[in-house]
């Protein structure tokens, strides 16, 4: 029961994150650019790709056959997000995470990182159940 609930929450969170970004793509593109890691074209492509990736993964999280691959992928994605955040932090950039568009208040670097870690642990935990 708890597992079912966790699963719902987790995939809900990622679907939400994906849709929020899709609704304001230029803003998300700007968020990616602010990290100063990618040029304009890759940022544009990524801003189109990432929301759909999040949505696909969270839907697959609920299917039996794709669950494990989707979990692995999500953990990888969260790691990449965290790396991006750390690199911005280290370079002294003041970026907004961009994780949930403009809809949620910014958690700051540490907050976003802890959140990512928590999500990763949840995904790993859930992947162990069929």
């Amino acid at each position, binding site marked *: 029961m708890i597992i079912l609930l966790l699963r719902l929450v987790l995939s809900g969170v990622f679907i939400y994150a994906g849709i929020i970004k899709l609704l304001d793509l230029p803003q998300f593109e700007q968020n990616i650019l602010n990290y100063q890691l990618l040029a304009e*074209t890759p940022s544009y492509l990524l801003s*189109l790709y990432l929301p*759909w990736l999040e*949505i*696909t993964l969270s839907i697959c999280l609920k299917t039996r*056959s*794709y669950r494990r*691959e989707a979990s692995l992928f999500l953990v990888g994605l969260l790691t990449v997000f965290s790396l991006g955040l750390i690199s911005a932090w280290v370079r002294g950039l003041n970026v907004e995470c961009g994780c949930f568009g403009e809809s949620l208040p910014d958690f700051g670097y540490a907050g976003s990182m802890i959140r990512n870690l928590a999500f990763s642990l949840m995904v790993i935990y859930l992947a162990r159940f069929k």
Partner: protein
Amino acid sequence: MEGGRSGARVTHNLSHGQVNAPYSLRRIAILVIAPACLATLTSLIVSKPDGRKISIEDALGYSNALWIDARSAEDFEKNHHEGAIHLNLSNWDRQLPEFLAQWELDQAVIIYCGSDDCQSSLQVAIRLQEAGVSPLHILHGGWEALQRIKANKTPLP
């Protein structure tokens, strides 16, 4: 990677119900490709008719487009695309008559500045869009892309 590949074979032989079944490369590939397809679709739907960038190949494919160079005066004097009009927000009042004299109704207008990083082509595009000039394009990669084509190198992806 090796593990994943052999895993793909194993999963075909084993039943799907096993908790510890290895990852299927095929499924991972689907997970990668599906969002890419959706992203492509999105780009087709949401691409703004004006202002979204045009690739250097598409730009050079226009037979009678009007080119605008929005870089600084020094850069323009050094070199510019053949036939391009020099127009940016700094010389707007002086150069607008030249643009108006050359521009034909429904003629495509292609605007470039130094690279992808500069803002001036976008600003000129916004002004011309206000006036109803269409179709209007910003050259992706700007002058750098034009230079690469001239040097016969393939443009960066």
